[in-house]
């Protein structure tokens, strides 16, 4: 039985990974421009 918050959990992992990837990309762009 899947509860409401467990669905959020899997979505949260995806958002978390995407935000980390975006942070790395932003840091690389900062290093390239500064």
């Amino acid at each position, binding site marked *: 039985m899947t509860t409401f918050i467990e669905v959020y959990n899997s979505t949260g*992992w995806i958002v*978390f990974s995407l935000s980390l990837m975006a942070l790395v990309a932003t840091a690389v762009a900062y290093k390239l421009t500064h």
Partner: protein
Amino acid sequence: MNTIFRILTWPFEAIGWLTIQLFLGVWWVFKAVFEILLRPFNWQKMPIPNWNEQMKLFAGAIDRVSTACLTTGVLGPTINEIFRINSVRPGEPPPHFEIAATNFYIWISSGIVLHIIARIVLSFMKEPTK
């Protein structure tokens, strides 16, 4: 253990996904569409005040996403647990502590990371020339 493994190996998963996308040729389609969409903006010759406003707008958009993360991941489940709005099954037990704690951790840290990204994006603003 699985959590630590996933945190440590996400770049390899991302690289594998990118390799697959390159192999499938999705990247070239994406690049062409992106260039066509961004061509009217004329990034190279954009006046500095306009560039600064673009960066402010982009940072604000990222910061709104971070607020949305907190709303969906922290406020939403909490209010759902209090009022049981979206619980389809009545009498559904509250979530396990580990699941709820992981959920909060993921969403809160995503919001913090997105806020940091917004702050870095703000640093891309240029000084106006006299």
